[in-house]
């Protein structure tokens, strides 16, 4: 066991702050909460599979398998997909919010409140 307990605490902090932001009525805070949430989820997967220092899952040139034990590549592949997907979602969400704000109108913050509540 290396730094997993430390990461466990960090994951908790990220989840808590993400939840708190998503419970706000501001749309912008919701988006920021989403970003934190995806980071938290990625770290959660990363930490559950066990942490390894200084042994990336690479195979040295001319070899068929890595030398010695390496970090588990599968969670990394999953997280890589997740990072990219969550960026796609984020881009979409940000434009959507901007658009919603434009439609509702800048002056009428009460209405803006209605859309985002």
């Amino acid at each position, binding site marked *: *066991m*290396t*730094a997993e*307990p*430390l*990461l*466990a*605490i960090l994951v*908790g902090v*990220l*989840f*808590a*702050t993400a*939840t*708190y932001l*998503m*419970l*706000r*009525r501001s*749309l*912008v805070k919701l988006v*920021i909460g989403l*970003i*934190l949430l995806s*980071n938290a989820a990625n770290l959660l997967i*990363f*930490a*559950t*599979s066990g*942490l390894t220092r*200084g042994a990336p*899952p*690479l*195979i040295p040139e001319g*070899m*068929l*398998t*890595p030398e010695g034990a390496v*970090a588990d*590549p*599968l969670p990394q*592949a999953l997280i*890589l*997909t997740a*990072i*990219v*997907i969550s*960026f*796609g979602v984020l*881009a979409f969400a*940000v*434009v*959507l*919010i*901007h*658009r919603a*704000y434009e439609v509702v109108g*800048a002056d009428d913050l009460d209405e803006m*409140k209605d859309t985002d*509540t």
Partner: protein
Amino acid sequence: MLFAILSIFVVAALAPVVHRATGRHSGWVLALLPAALFVYFASFLPAVVGGESVRLAWQWMPGLDVQFSFLIDGLSLMFALLIAGIGVFVVSYAGRYLEAHRDLGRFYVLILSFMGSMLGLVLADNIILMFIFWELTSITSYLLIGYNHEDLKARKAALQGLIVTVGGGLALLAGLVLLAMAAGSWELSEILAGEDSLHEHALYLPLVILILLGTFTKSAQFPFHFWLPNAMAAPTPVSAYLHSATMVKAGVYLMARLNPELGGTELWTWTLGLFGAVTMFTGAWMAIQSTEIKKLLAYSTVMALGTLTMLIGIGTPYAAMAGAAFLLAHSLYKGALFMLAGSIDHGTGEKEVPNMGGLRHAMPLTAAFSVIAALSLAGLPPLFGFVGKELMLEAALGAPDALAVVLPLLALGSAILVVAVAAIVGLRPFFGARREFKRTPHESPGAMLAGPAVLSVLGLVLGLFPALAQPLVAATAMSIHGADPGMELKLWHGINLPLGMSLLSLAAGLVIYRFWDSVRAGIGRGMAPAMRIAPERGYERFMDGLVWFSDFQTRVLQNGHLRTYVMVTMLTTVALVVGTFAALGGFEVSVRFDDILIHEWVIVALVALAAMFVATTNSRLAAVASLGIVGFGVALIYVFFSAPDLGITQVLVETLTVILLVLVLFRLPGFLKFSNPLTRVRDVIASLAVGVTMTAVLMATLGVQYFPAISEYHIAESEPSAYGRNIVNVILVDFRALDTLGELFVLALAAVGVYAMIKFRAEDRKS
């Protein structure tokens, strides 16, 4: 056999094409299919009559014990012949009856699919297969009842039928699974052949109750009888087929099928006997009060279904024989009567019996066949209905215990009413003074008379020569009873109590017919209070309650406030996780903080502080900047722990994210304090609960590994098989390439969405 069943569905799919190609003769062309099936099923007759049962099986899902297995014995063959035989006439009849309807092609699709489902249901040996066909009949019947979908009444009736039968179907599924568990087999033939009786089994009571819920709803037994008369909103051929001869008998079929295994207990005898008898009487009682000819017939069908249920419940050899004979007799005359009622409607445009009269001149053939079929319904010699009725009365008298008193009384009461009903539908429209009709009455075309002619005359022939029906009826009774009842069908039983009851019912029934109008009015007044507590009111209350409940839970759970959803989702997760921990008696934490390097402490602390700052700051710029710290910090964590690819990706994405946020967020208004301090305290508590839970989950899973990692394979095969040295990349583009392709689609979709939103905004501005 499998081919025979599947061929129906194939033809059903092609039916609209056939219809277009053959025009007004499409009914006859498509009727060739059930005719061919009838001949095919008839080829099993010699074997089945000889006391054999044929079993045919094809593998479907061997691992789940589900297979296409079919069982052909007396009972299923009787049903299959009725379904295919009456199907011939229903399809040809529909070809003319619905000639002018624009959706006739669709009708063929539905009625043929229904036929296939029904045949599958009665022939299936595998319980799951049977259940699938059972549900298919409910669904096709829903579509057929609601065939005139522009009519609100038809749609309501269709939904009612569906909800009642499918609701019962759910209970049935549970019951069948229990049955299979108790008997240790999914094949009906094996369950029936099983040595051990299920009577003493612990699951006997629940499984009987659940199965009976299914069969009672399907076969419109009291108190679920109300859906059947409403289903008369369907076109007449459907009523003739589904709601008299076939679908509603599915429940009866299943009870008859399981009778040898489940029957013989007091529970079975009393439940079926009493509910059947009450249904029988209720049906007859309601029939006499109806004025619409199809309603009259529908309630008399309810009465017949009650009779059959009662006979299965009684369980004596006599009752089995009576049930088989009554089943055959009823299918013949009821199919004929429904089609004739449709002919009257078709020829005159009139549905109300009190407005009819004197049609014998305009519709002589319709009148003749109606009289024959009605005589069979009334149970008069020399029709086959008489044979069935005599046996039924005899069987009711032979019921065990106190039922021997109750059942004959109810049977006599129903018999009296049924005589009146038979006279109302068989005599009233055709005799007496000639009436004026909306259309000039005219005789129906050949295609619409063929069915009633064959079915009603068959009732007469079998009545005169019961020996013709003897082999199949005896084989059916054998399946119902489980052993050969060893009886002969006879027209003349000698002078005995049932004959006396018959004579009494005839006389009393005719008296009621004579004074029908005043009887109806009298009953109508007397019944008004009772109608308020009728079972259909219960159904309506239930439906209202359902609507009220979904309204209520939508208001509570889906109130349009996103933060409520977030709160509910998160807290539910927390509750479930904590509940699981509590149920497992907590977990062991063996964490040590000694093997952590100094830079790891620093970076983790930085990320945590930045995240907390994001959550609390009121400055947008500060929030975005701190978010950047979180992102890059996480990237560093990836790099520290041997995930360079993740680190690179995270840095790229994080850069883009910050740019995007800076570009867009500053076009939005600044953060406002929407919520009051109390709300914020509540939210902080909820968030902390989520955070602590997630930390606990992670702590609990550390050091637990139930399975060897599947990535061993990836590590070993990366270079030899996929020629890549970066294993993470190889997984993404090779081992899991299809997932990556899906991911690309998601990104492309998001890009299209973003582009569309920006583009439309530009266009809005121009306009």
